């Protein structure tokens, strides 16, 4: 791959990199709450400012932080246009067929676009600064309380960590398969819709087959090495939060409370 997949972990030594995974995920959840609660322009302004600081402190660069936004830009535009045209049909500016752009639609579109962008950026910072395996371990510790309700948290964690480890392999495999098909004359860059549709099969079928094959082999290998679903797994001990981590938790919580109460 010439280009790294979006959200791929990039090792580093920034303060955000050094935060414990479970605390990062916890902060991420609080921030998600804050983004969802945001209503006013000031609310969004504070969140944008905060995301800016986040990118600065994590030292991952604006490019990387915005990579998923760039990748999904068409998705964003479509969401925006849909909201603009269909949201408030009561008093539109003009009405052309089913399209009725209105002020309410515009505002709704902006709201949603900004929220999605904020979520993508924050999520990206989390993914890029945390190694996949550590991320799943962090989730596992956060899931622990669910054990009280007899939810199999270990198995969930195992599924997550296996899935995480699969992702790079699958990317590589998909890349290889794509190249092999291009060498056989398949065209993936054609502008014609019919060609695009036709190009899907030579990719999807082998990628799924490869994924199933890998899953099969892995499950055999795990069983051969004595994995049982009822077995306790070794767990990473994350320990108490450091000063900076307390600061992060408190800042995120204040942000969220501010969004609910005042802004």
């Amino acid at each position, binding site marked *: 791959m*010439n280009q790294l997949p979006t959200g791929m972990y990039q090792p580093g030594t920034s303060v955000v990199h050094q935060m414990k995974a479970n605390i990062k995920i916890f902060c991420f959840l609080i921030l998600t709450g804050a983004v969802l609660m945001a209503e006013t322009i000031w609310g969004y302004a504070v969140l944008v400012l905060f995301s800016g600081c986040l990118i600065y402190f994590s030292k991952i660069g604006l490019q990387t932080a915005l990579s998923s936004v760039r990748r999904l830009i068409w998705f964003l535009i479509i969401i925006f246009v849909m909201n603009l045209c269909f949201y408030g049909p009561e008093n539109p500016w003009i009405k052309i067929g089913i399209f009725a752009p209105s002020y309410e639609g515009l505002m709704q579109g902006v709201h949603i676009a900004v929220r999605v962008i904020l979520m993508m950026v924050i999520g990206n910072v989390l993914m890029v600064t945390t190694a996949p395996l550590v991320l799943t371990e962090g989730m596992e510790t956060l899931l622990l309380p669910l054990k009280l309700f007899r939810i199999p948290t270990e198995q969930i964690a195992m599924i997550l960590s296996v899935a995480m480890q699969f992702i790079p392999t699958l990317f590589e*495999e998909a890349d290889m398969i794509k190249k092999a098909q*291009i*060498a056989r004359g398949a065209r993936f860059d054609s502008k014609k819709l019919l060609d695009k549709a036709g190009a899907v099969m*030579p990719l*999807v079928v082998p990628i799924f*087959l490869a994924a199933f094959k890998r899953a099969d082999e892995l499950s055999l290998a795990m069983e051969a090495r004595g994995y049982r679903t009822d077995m306790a797994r070794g767990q990473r001990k994350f320990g108490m939060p450091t000063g900076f981590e307390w600061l992060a938790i408190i800042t995120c919580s204040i942000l969220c409370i501010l969004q609910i109460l005042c802004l």
Partner: protein
Amino acid sequence: MSITLDSVFYTYAPGTPYASAALKNISFTVEKGEFVGIMGKTGCGKSTLIQLIAGLLTPDSGAVLLDGKNINDKNYDRNELHRKVGVVFQHPECQLFETTVERDVAFSLKHFGWSKEKVQSAVERALTMMGFDYEKVREKSPLEFSGGEKRRIAIAGILAAEPEVLILDEPIAGLDPLGREAFLVLVKRLNEAGMTILMISHNADALAEYAERIVILKDGMLFRDGVTREVFSDMDELQKNGIGVSEARQCAALLAERGFDVAKDTICYEDLLKQMIAIGRGQQ
């Protein structure tokens, strides 16, 4: 069709913490009809090299020329490139996807605008070449074959397009000895019919037997490029750099160590046999 690499550099994931310089300053030319073996330790950049030649990667700097034309020029015809250069990847069996063997083998022919009869005869020829009974396998799903058979079907799909250059990435790893020999003989036959062959292999015996020229990479750089006999003669230097030579060559070296008069350019079994017969005659 001649292939020229002119001081080619390639880096994966440039500008990120994962950046790795896979190829550094590679230059060589392969003339039409040559059989070139490519060797080197794992991770030295062999697969990267062939992907550059096949136009699947674009060099950071330097140029890849086919018949003197830069394949990364904007107005170079990509379809022409993919038609003339066939690539058998490290695990070609992964690329099968059609519902029947016949359709899969015909996949690359779809874009050529050939008549139905011509396509069918090309498919039949390619499958027969790979040792299948065309009538028996044409309607079967490619997925119901064994790993080795799948690989042969996938290779048939590449041969069906009758490429001028055939690039093979580790084609014989994992084949049984008979299948390996049969495959190498087939490749040699294609080569004798005028096809240019570039074959990556860790199997020095196979290359000693069949390739006329050896290119060796080391840490992304060109380490050796020359006639097979000469390259393998220099056994000590190769082994010092972690590159194995053919068994016949090693055997000759052992004999030489014990004081027998065995030439350094003994690289394949035929050579070795001749040398040993000569020694035997001398002792009588």
